């Protein structure tokens, strides 16, 4: 059975419902909101513009920035060179060269582990594919470099991340496990006040720990 669509004539309706409150007070209320905003902005209560790079937005805890290779307790890489990340990588930016580990319980470790940061699309598939929680992401997004060679990050660079205190950890599925192994002192106190109207559901906090440097043994 067909049902006839109900037709609403907006103009008729507007004319019918025209009143003082609607015609005069309505715009005033709107104007009030705008003026409130303006006052907030002028007094610095809310500011859409931030003074980057001195000021930064607080990024999500799951932001996918430059990678980190995590370490075992003795400082050697957790990575077992299984190639899962290289297999999952849609940008084909991970190059691994495995080698024999003296401990038969570990058996395999990466002699080389290079990520081409120019090719990487920061999709995080490598992190999802990793069976050992050996590769996670930081919140570092500032990866500018003067030469191409600098954008080729080798295993040493991926493991000892001097930038970590500044940016903090990013996407990592198994946070409990990873956070117990990565320790660093956050350099800047994270700004809790969020700029503009950006809202974050979770409270962004840094974990204060010892500096993470596997090259020091």
């Amino acid at each position: 059975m067909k049902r006839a669509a109900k037709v609403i004539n907006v103009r008729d309706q507007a004319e019918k419902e025209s009143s003082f409150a609607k015609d005069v007070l309505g715009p005033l209320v709107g104007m009030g909101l705008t003026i409130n905003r303006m006052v907030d902005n002028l007094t610095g209560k809310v500011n859409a513009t931030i003074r980057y790079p001195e000021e930064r937005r607080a990024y999500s805890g799951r932001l996918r920035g430059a990678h980190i290779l995590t370490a075992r307790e003795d400082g050697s890489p957790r990575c077992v060179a299984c190639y899962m990340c290289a297999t999952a990588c849609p940008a084909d930016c991970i190059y691994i060269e495995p080698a024999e580990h003296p401990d038969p319980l570990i058996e395999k470790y990466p002699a080389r582990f290079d990520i081409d940061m120019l090719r990487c699309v920061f999709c995080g598939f490598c992190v999802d594919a990793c069976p050992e929680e050996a590769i996670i992401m930081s919140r570092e997004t500032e990866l500018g470099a003067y030469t191409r060679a600098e954008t080729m990050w080798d295993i040493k660079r991926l493991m000892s991340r001097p930038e970590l205190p500044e940016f903090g950890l990013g996407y990592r599925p198994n946070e409990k496990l990873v956070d117990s192994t990565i320790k660093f002192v956050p350099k800047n106190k994270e700004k809790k006040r969020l700029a503009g109207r950006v809202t974050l559901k979770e409270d962004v906090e840094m974990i204060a720990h010892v500096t993470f440097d596997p090259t020091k043994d």
Partner: protein
Amino acid sequence: MPKFTLNGQEVEAKAGQTIIQAAGDHGIEIPHYCYHPDLPIDGNCRMCLVDVEKMPKLTPACTTIVNEGMVVRSDNPRVKEAVRGVLEFLLINHPVDCPVCDQAGECRLQDYYMVYGLHTSEIPLGMKVRKRKVIDLGPMVVLDQERCVLCSRCIRFFDNVTGTGEMQFFGRGDHVAIGTFEDRPLDNPYSGNVVDICPVGALTSRDFRFKCRVWFLHATNSICAGCSTGCATRIDHRDGAIFRMIARRNPEVNRSWLCDEGRLSFHELTRSERVIQPSIKGSDGVQTPITWEDALQSVDQRLKQIRDANGGSSILGFGSPSATNEGLFLFKRYLTEQLGATQFEFRIDSEDKKVLDEEDQILRHFDKHPNSMGAIKLGLISDDLDGIDGAIRAARDGRIKAAVIIYFNPLVRRPSDDEAEGRIIELIDELKYSVVLAAHKADWHASADVVLPVTAWSEEEGTYTNFEGRVQFAAKAIESAGDALPIWEVFAMLIHASGAESRWMSAENVFATMTERSQPYSRITFEQTQLPGVVLASS
């Protein structure tokens, strides 16, 4: 020929076949670990349980011989439940170290778990029985006892195929492990086969260890060029590099086996530098690079000058028993039809006698060339010269002025090979004009007048004739180095350069011409050279 019903379908089995074999013939794979077509039946893994009507319990398909009127089901819930249970038992103490295991990707445990298992393990990792890992078993094999499912394929291989019996079960209960006595290394020449037949990651290859994950590799069917047996192999390669060679089953030649020398023979291809472009010796006696067109023009002109001055019999065609049939055929055709050459030879070390000499009772032959029989069948043999010694004598006497020489480094080297190269230098030194077709650089190329780069085994497709006259096709796996061309293409271009018709576009075209023109190859077709190959009628 008993008829039986398999999963509701009436099928026929060969007399004496077991259910698993008959099912395999009809394209139904019954899961199994211990069963192997070329090993005696053991029936210990219990993965191949099937439901046979009127039998009270499930029965293993690998040990049950098909009888007339049997009604077999391999797909009902009862069987699936049983197989799932067996798999769960097999995985109880499995270490689940797939990330570091080289078998991952071609592991039967992984495959069957995805099809039949998908269960959650009741045993936490910490409670599993630990065994020894990374045990060095000689130059070919690494043993990991934890990953083993105790199928005993390796034990049966050493007991029944090589007869050396190195491996055995040790221990009792869930502590049973495979191993060799006192971890002694496996030093028999076929030990690499246990890596192929191991259905899980217990026995992995020392040579291939950690080189590449298997899912990155591309497979190409080939024929081993290590000796005159002509074993069927599969070349696994990636980005133009060969990573490993494993046996392919050919029941007529090598069954499922491959010797260790053959398995590792591909390393020889990258061991020395390649010839990458044609070069010609100038008036100053130095080899300088030249384009293919100019090189072939020059070769054709010089050879024709020598023929006009001294007659066709002064030109020697010295073939190689490592070249394909197609290459040797066009090589001979160019020299006979365009230059009227009558002298052909390929023997450096009496390959024609060694070609049938067995090195052992399993696979290997003493002749380390894949196509000696092909060279004999194509008539690259002269009773007059009787090998390279006769050719050197004839060159010294002035009966031979020029030669076209094909030389490949043998993929399985023997100490006598250095001597063989010495004989070729002697021959070149006696000649007025020499053309060498080679894949790898050698010091002696300096004395040749022209050096032409050709593709080596695995870089070209073609057929090889093994010791018994079986013609088998080997496909092209990787690209060749530099400007190298297959031998048949070089001679097709030379025939064109000398003004005759040359229409061969592929090895298959050349093969078709060969079956028309060469009597020993007259009754076979190209399709027949695929597995298991075709044996030439003895003349």
